Structures are given as C-alpha cells and as structure tokens.
C-alpha cells in the first residue's frame, strides 16, 4: 500500500463509500438512495466495460447500449415465456440460464459486429458501431411478441442459487461485487501481455503491426470481452428495473454511456464510476428542478468538450501521474 498514488487512494475511498453508504441508507428507510446506488453501480459496470475499449484500446464504440439491452432481454424473454408459455427451449426463471444467455448473446453479437466494424477505423468505426447498436434497437422494436416499442414487464426475476434478487440488499451486494470484479478484471487485462499489445495498438498501430502483431484480433478479442461484460450489466439492470424496452438500446443511451466514460476520464480505473455517479446525480437533481433537464445537461456536455481535457479524473490527478 506504500506505493499508492493519489488517484489510487481516491479509488479505494470511493469504492469503500459505495460499499457502506447505500446499505446504510436502505436500513434507515431511504430506499430511494439504494435505487440510485443500484443504477449507479450497474451502469458503472457498463461504463467500465466501455472504458476497456475506449480508454485502453482507443476504439470509440458508439453502440454499447445494445449490449445492455441484449443482456436485459436475456432475462425478460425467458421469464416472459416461463410465465405465458411458448418458446420452450429457453422458457425458464433459471438465473444461470439468463446469465449464460446474457453473456453468450452479447459476446456473439460483439463477435459478429466487431469483426465487421474493426475492419475500419476512426470515424467509420464510430458510425458503424452506432448503426449496429441501432439495428438491435429496431430489431426489438419490431418484435410485437414482446410488445415492441412499449416494452416488457418482467414479472419474475432471475432465480439464482444462494441469492434472492427480489431483495434490494442482495441485488446490490451482487452488483457491487460484480463492479469490483469488473474493475479488477479490466485492470488485470490492461496490465497483461495482451493489454500491452492493445494499448500499443491504440497509440501506434503501425509499429505494432511491424513488430508482428495482428492487432485486428487483439482488438476483436477486447471487443468481445467488453460486449460480454456489458451484457452482464444488462442482466443486472433487467433484474433491477423489471421493465425492459428497446429504448434501453437507443443510440442516445450509448451516447450517455460514452459521456460517463469521457467525463470520468477514460483509461482510469475509477473514472467510469465517477462519470456514472455524476451522470445519475445530475439526472436526479436536474430533473427534480425541471423536466427540461436535458438542456443544462447538453450545455454541460458541450462545455466539457470545449474546455475540460482528461475528464473529472484529470482534475483529481496529482502532478507527474
């Protein structure tokens, strides 16, 4: 612990607060704060997964909300059929099945769309991931079986061994631990040999190719890992909100996710969590003043791009870090 940097300490303190405060509020009858914290932690996982691509791999994916949606529908669709019949193959309340579907489908979607998107770079990549995200949106919008645009209410949450997701405390526990694991996973991956190649390719792709790395496959691997992780966040989100709709996948949701990563400071460990906290607090605070909260939010976003470099985490960073 002697070698901890200032940002390292902030990360630890932040995570400890996240572990203690929400359960404390819940036990004292403030369920509302627990809801906020749950959203924060779940979106935090999604933001962490996006950060692996955007911050560490230099891949600006603008379609990440699709993975959240896929993960959430992986809970909603089997649960729906278990209640109302049909689609016997997956009709079940079994949480492990939901989980496997959420991660598997997201990874597959990432593999297919990533394989095509990663043949391009820069602004092409950005627009194509955006288009693929929107494809998922329109797909679920067109599925009348699941109420299309109007969305689907999840009557029965995923049934997991040992954990009861109907209990906010247990759901929060699972989400919080998942977030910590996600953050550690990204940190470990980034520092591994694989991560070195990924970062090298972000900084100087030509050099990496000349050294003998087929950077395409490294990027695709990162894309699949990130997609699967984000799908897992969707699994949690579906179990939290118990309502899912195509709107979760709309490109503006992807934009918000990206905003969280950039605002918090891409390629830092706590950055995505910081970004999602600020986003959720702002959403709550601003929307309590005015239904037009997108206006100050949008202005802030423009201001952020024009005037702040390196995001919030950049403001915290000590010299020489």
């Amino acid at each position: 612990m002697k070698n901890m940097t200032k940002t390292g300490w902030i990360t630890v303190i932040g995570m400890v607060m996240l572990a203690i405060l929400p359960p404390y509020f819940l036990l004292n009858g403030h369920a509302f704060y627990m809801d906020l914290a749950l959203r924060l932690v779940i979106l935090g996982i999604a933001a962490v997964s996006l950060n692996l691509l955007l911050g560490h791999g230099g891949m600006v994916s603008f379609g990440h909300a699709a993975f959240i949606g896929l993960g959430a529908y992986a809970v909603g669709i089997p649960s729906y059929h278990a209640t109302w019949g049909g689609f016997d193959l997956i009709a079940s309340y079994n949480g492990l099945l939901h989980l496997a579907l959420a991660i598997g489908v997201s990874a597959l979607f990432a593999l297919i769309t990533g394989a095509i998107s990663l043949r391009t770079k820069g602004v092409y990549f950005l627009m194509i991931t955006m288009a693929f995200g929107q494809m998922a949106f329109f797909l679920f919008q067109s599925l009348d079986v699941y109420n299309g645009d109007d969305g689907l209410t999840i009557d029965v949450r995923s049934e997991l061994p040992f954990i009861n997701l109907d209990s906010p405390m247990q759901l929060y526990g699972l989400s919080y631990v998942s977030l910590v694991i996600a953050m550690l996973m990204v940190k470990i991956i980034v520092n591994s040999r694989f991560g070195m190649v990924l970062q090298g390719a972000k900084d100087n792709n030509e050099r990496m190719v000349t050294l003998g790395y087929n950077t395409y496959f490294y990027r695709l691997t990162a894309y699949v890992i990130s997609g699967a992780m984000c799908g897992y966040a969707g699994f949690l989100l579906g179990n939290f909100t118990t309502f899912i709709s195509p709107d979760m996948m709309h490109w503006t949701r992807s934009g918000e996710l990206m905003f969280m990563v950039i605002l918090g400071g891409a390629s830092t460990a706590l950055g995505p969590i910081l970004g999602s906290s600020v986003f959720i607090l702002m959403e709550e605070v601003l929307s309590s003043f005015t239904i037009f909260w997108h206006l100050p939010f949008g202005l802030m976003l423009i201001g952020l791009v024009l005037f702040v470099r390196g995001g919030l985490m950049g403001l915290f960073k000590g010299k020489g870090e």
Partner: protein
Amino acid sequence: MDYTLLFMQVLNGLQLGLLLFLVASGLTLVFGILDFVNLAHGSVYMIGAFICASLTLFLGNFLLAILIALPLTGLVGYAIEVLVARRLYDKDHLDHVLGTFGLVLVLDTLAHIVWGPAGITVPLPAWLDGQVELFDGAVIPVLRLLIIGTGLAVAGGLVWLVNYTRLGMLIRAGASNRTMVSALGIDIQMLFALVFALGAMLAGLAGMLISPLTGASIEMGGQIIITAFVVIIIGGIGSMKGAFIAAVIIGLIDTLGRSFLDTLFVLFMSENAAETAAPAVSAMMIYILMAIILAVKPQGLFPPKARG
C-alpha cells in the same frame, strides 16, 4: 405478384431514398470538407419541420412557409457553426461526437419547450392533397411526387454546385488544402460557415417536405440521423455520388422489405413464422446490407481518394 403494388412501392422507396439523400448530402458535404462529424444534423432536420409547420399554420400557405423556413433553418445551421462546430474542427472525432451529442440534447429540449412534447400535424394544402394516376390503377400522392422531384433537383443542383461553380471549386480546394485557399485571400471561415448552413438547409428542407405526411415531432431527428449515417457509410464518407446511390438503394430496400418480405417468407416458412420474422428482418435489412458492403469494401462504395 401484384405489379401495380410493386411499382407504387418502388416509387415510395425512391421517395424515401431521396429524402434520405437530402439529409445525407449535408452530412457528407460537411464531413468531406470540414472533416466534421455532426450528430446534430438530425436535429436540424427536425427543427426545419417544426418551423415550417408553425409557419404553415400561421400563414395558411405551405409553399410560402417553406420559402421562409429555408433561410431560417440555414440561419440555425450558421449559428451552430459559429457557436459550437467552429471550435471543434481542430479536435478529434470523439470530441465532435460528444459535443454535437450535447447539441442534440439542447436542440431537442428547446424544440420541446417551444413546440411542446406532442409535435404538430401539418395540414396538407389542397393542391398537394390529391393523387396522380400514372397508369391503370397506379396512383401516387402528389406530395410524394413533389419529394421525388425536389430530391432529384437538389441532387442535380449539388452536382452543378460542387463541380461547375467558383464556390464549388473553393469547396473542393478547401477540402484538400485549407492553407492554400486562405492564402488566396478567401475567408475560409466564412466559406465553412456557408457550407454548414447549406447542409442545414438541405436537412431542413427534407424535414419540411415530409412534415405533411408524418407531422413534425421531436423524435424525428434522432430517427433519421442513424439511417443517414448508414447512407454515408455505404456511399463512402464525403462522397456526394456515393451518398446519392446509397440513399436510393436504402430507400428502396427498406420500403420493399417492409412491404414484400412477409410474402417472400411465406414461400418457405409457415405463415405464423413469417409474420414474426418478416418485420424483424426488414427492420435490420439496411444494417445487414451495410455489414455486407463493408465486409467487401471497408471504405464504402466510393471511398474519397484524398483521405485514402
């Protein structure tokens, strides 16, 4: 197969394609010349529709409303350029996207404040309300013909503007060599602002033309922008010719898919399955097309030479 229906759907597809071209042309113009990614382009389309709708209700004349709304939309584009876009040209594409995403939120909320959440329906003037019988049984609404005509005229106008005018020459020169053009004593900043305003007017025009059919609504901008992106990705970002061809292809495929895919699917699956699968597949069709084209040509059909 009903050939009259097919013919009419082809015309509908063409109409959608030309509408998409109006939006995509501004997007590709701005990207090709300014290297700027503008998510807020869809919002300008939406604002154009709202301004025109209000003016139509106020003046009682759709055509006059368009004529007044056009320069107003151009002014909105000009304001966006001066206030935000101009400060972003030197930053990277990620900043463009985030900044203009902020702009989308601002513009959509402003539209919400000014025009309310519900949107406005635009009364169709009598002369546009009719239908034209092209041949036996094939009728097409006059408005759709107007959109097709306008789209073709604008496409022609853009080709002329970019290839045969002094402005076009400056635009093309500015794209490849900013310092060179400014060294010639031309106010390049003004030129860029004009290009931006022109793009805004084109998107606004599309919004105005479609407003009697769909009304003006806040969501319309966010809906069209991604499709317009798909158009310019397929066509090759920055290529006007590519944007035109891709827009028409997408308009046709989307329209025909939505109307005929179920008939096609019934041929090899049960009616029930076709009823579920057809809408799902047709919703994804343009993206699948995009994926296929990119798998073969990652830079789109007409990749711009200079950018490699």
